[in-house]
């Protein structure tokens, strides 16, 4: 029998002891170090900036809540100028310096250059923006994961959308790089499958200054609709010039990465009414997403997460949950926990496929419209996860 006084002392001591143990446990647990080799300067710096903000937000949020699995999260950013050679160099630096879990690079080429090195560096990489199919296809790696929608996922949502359109003759304007060509190709396939005809195909070089020739060709071709696969600087230059030619008034316009949250902010009314694939939108109605958008607005007043930021934040969620599952920050353990794992994300429960390390999720189609006064791509059509993320085609041998 313990009297109340002793009980109090024992109780207090227990509290003190456990508190000491807990804090020293925090102090003893290895921090989670995230490395971000991304475009801080150069032509993709706007996107790099978006990615950086999303990572910082996720890290701050986690640390404010006591860390991930009781571990402090540290992050380090290095500039790759979106150049694959530099990306490899910077990723190696991060990995050798202890930041072995890396993410949020902009160009696919960078990730493909880093991928084969991950084993050598005992590191892992989670792609959150890169679309090349090869990342989870021909050039897949055990330590390489992807959470965002790849090219073949975008291809899978074009057909359902095109089937709803009445325009019969279509033109294509796509950047003459791997991603653009892939999109053009998949659009052609979707057109064939839905009984449309392609009357004009245009692949202007990446970084073109004058799109007049292509705009005129589209106008001359009699196309009723045009599919645009241009991004960033190209998208804005093209949109501005196309507006001057009145293209958007004459022809129904749809595209991928053409009217993202970022480019719409820059172009405004110029791109009103344009249809677009949407990989993530702050308007998506899930409890997780609503919370993210609300917290984001508190941290960055007047701002909402863009498509790249939503996907990057989702990637951070997956990383954090995998670390917790593994009970370790060692890349080998985290990768093991990540592959084939189930994750609670802002877009619901999603599975990271074991066969190719691709996260399976839905994809969307929408239109640029005003939402409470601001112009933004708004989701109109949802393609559920199984249909939106095509099954592995066997090119990945993990």
């Amino acid at each position, binding site marked *: 029998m313990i009297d109340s006084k002793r009980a109090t002392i024992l109780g207090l001591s227990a509290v003190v002891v456990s508190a000491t143990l807990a804090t020293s446990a925090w102090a003893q647990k290895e921090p989670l170090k995230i490395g971000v080799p991304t475009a801080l*300067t150069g032509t993709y710096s706007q996107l790099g900036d978006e990615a950086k903000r999303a990572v910082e937000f996720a890290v701050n949020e986690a640390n404010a809540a006591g860390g991930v699995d009781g571990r402090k999260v540290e992050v380090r950013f290095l500039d790759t100028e979106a150049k694959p050679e530099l990306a490899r*160099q910077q990723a190696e630096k991060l990995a050798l*310096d202890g930041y072995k879990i890396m993410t949020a690079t902009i160009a696919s080429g960078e990730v493909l250059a880093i991928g084969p090195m991950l084993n050598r560096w005992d590191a892992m990489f989670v792609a959150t923006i890169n679309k090349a199919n090869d990342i989870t296809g021909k050039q897949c790696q055990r330590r390489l994961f992807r959470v965002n929608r790849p090219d073949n996922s975008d291809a899978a949502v074009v057909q359902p959308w095109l089937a709803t359109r009445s325009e019969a003759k279509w033109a294509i304007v796509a950047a003459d790089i791997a991603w653009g060509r892939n999109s053009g190709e998949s659009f052609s396939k979707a057109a064939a499958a839905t009984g449309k005809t392609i009357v004009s195909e245009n692949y202007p070089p990446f970084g073109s200054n004058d799109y007049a020739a292509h705009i005129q060709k589209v106008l001359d071709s009699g196309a009723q609709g045009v599919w645009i696969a241009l991004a960033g600087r190209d998208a804005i230059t093209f949109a501005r010039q196309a507006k001057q030619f009145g293209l958007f008034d004459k022809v129904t316009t749809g595209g991928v990465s053409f009217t993202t949250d970022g480019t719409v902010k820059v172009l405004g009314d110029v791109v009103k009414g344009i249809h677009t694939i949407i990989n993530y939108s702050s308007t998506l109605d899930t409890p997780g997403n609503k919370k993210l958008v609300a917290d984001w607005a508190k941290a960055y007043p007047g701002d909402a997460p863009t498509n790249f930021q939503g996907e990057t934040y989702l990637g951070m969620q997956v990383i954090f949950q995998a670390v917790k599952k593994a009970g370790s920050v060692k890349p080998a353990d985290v990768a093991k926990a990540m592959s084939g794992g189930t994750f609670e994300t802002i877009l619901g429960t999603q599975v990271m496929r074991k066969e190719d390390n691709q996260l399976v999720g839905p994809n969307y189609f929408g239109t640029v419209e005003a939402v409470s006064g601001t112009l933004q791509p708004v989701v109109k059509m949802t393609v559920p996860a199984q249909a939106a993320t095509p099954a592995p085609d066997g090119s990945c041998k993990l």
Partner: protein
Amino acid sequence: MSDAVTQRKPGVAAAVGAGPRVPTFVVAAAVLAAAGFAVPWLIDSQLALTLMTQAVIYAILATAIGFMIRQNGLTSFGHAAFFGMAVYLMALNGKFDAVPAELAVLAAIAVPAAFAFLAGLIIVRLPALSFSMLTLAVAQSLHELMLRWRELANGDDGMPVRLPSTLFGVDIELFQAPSTMFVVCWVVLVAVIALLTLVARSHFGVLTVAIRENEERTRYVGYHTLVPRALVFALSAAVGGLAGVLFALYNAFATPGALHWSLSGEALIMAVIGGPHAIWGPALGAVVFFVVKDAVGDLTEHWPAIIGATLIVVTVLLPQGVSGLLARFTGRRAASKP
């Protein structure tokens, strides 16, 4: 490495003098090369070793550009063409398995050299800036080609360089682990500089400097002036290709960036900062530039402003490059200006 200016015979333009029978620079080269082997023992940090390895690879490219400036008085704005050519030849051979990798290495050095020689026969005759712009044009065209020809090389997504398990009888790991690859690249750099110094001091080297100083007069004296200049260009291209080979072995990945004018530009900056008057100047410039850029990049994303300002200051204060400064300190006169 003496660059003292001596007059050998009347009629021959000011030239670099020859050294003793067994040139001191050969001994120096051997010592330096041997010293390279000690580095991985002294430096533990894999990070430092990998950065140094990459710096040395760029140093080889910069040396190639500097050699052109020194011997021909011509500035190549497109040396990435030879570098990238080599990288892609290695990558494509890995894809198609056309010849054994050893042969691919040799081809990756020989093909850019042959290309440069043939093109050189036409373009070295042009005024200096026209020559530079044409080298840029050729490099950019190659860049466009590899960017567009996706079926061949995957365009901007790049392609991995598949390598066999042994190369020249050595385990391929040697070329991919920082501690061993550093030694390989360092020895290659030293050997290249020694070889180019040998060439520069030979009759051929003296001749090309004479052509550089006054092409007309040299021709009137009776020398052919076209082939020597084209040969210098070819040699410079071969060295650029060699850098590309090492890059391909170490990074095992090829992208059109290896052909882009920004790479040519950076390598040119390295060569000029180092000072092309000394054959080893550009290599020093490359290491300095690479290390400084890397260090500043670690500190801030405003590295372009700092690097740009540093570049301006260094170039203005040291127009002869860092090697010119060092040469002055050691009391030797820098060679006559190109």
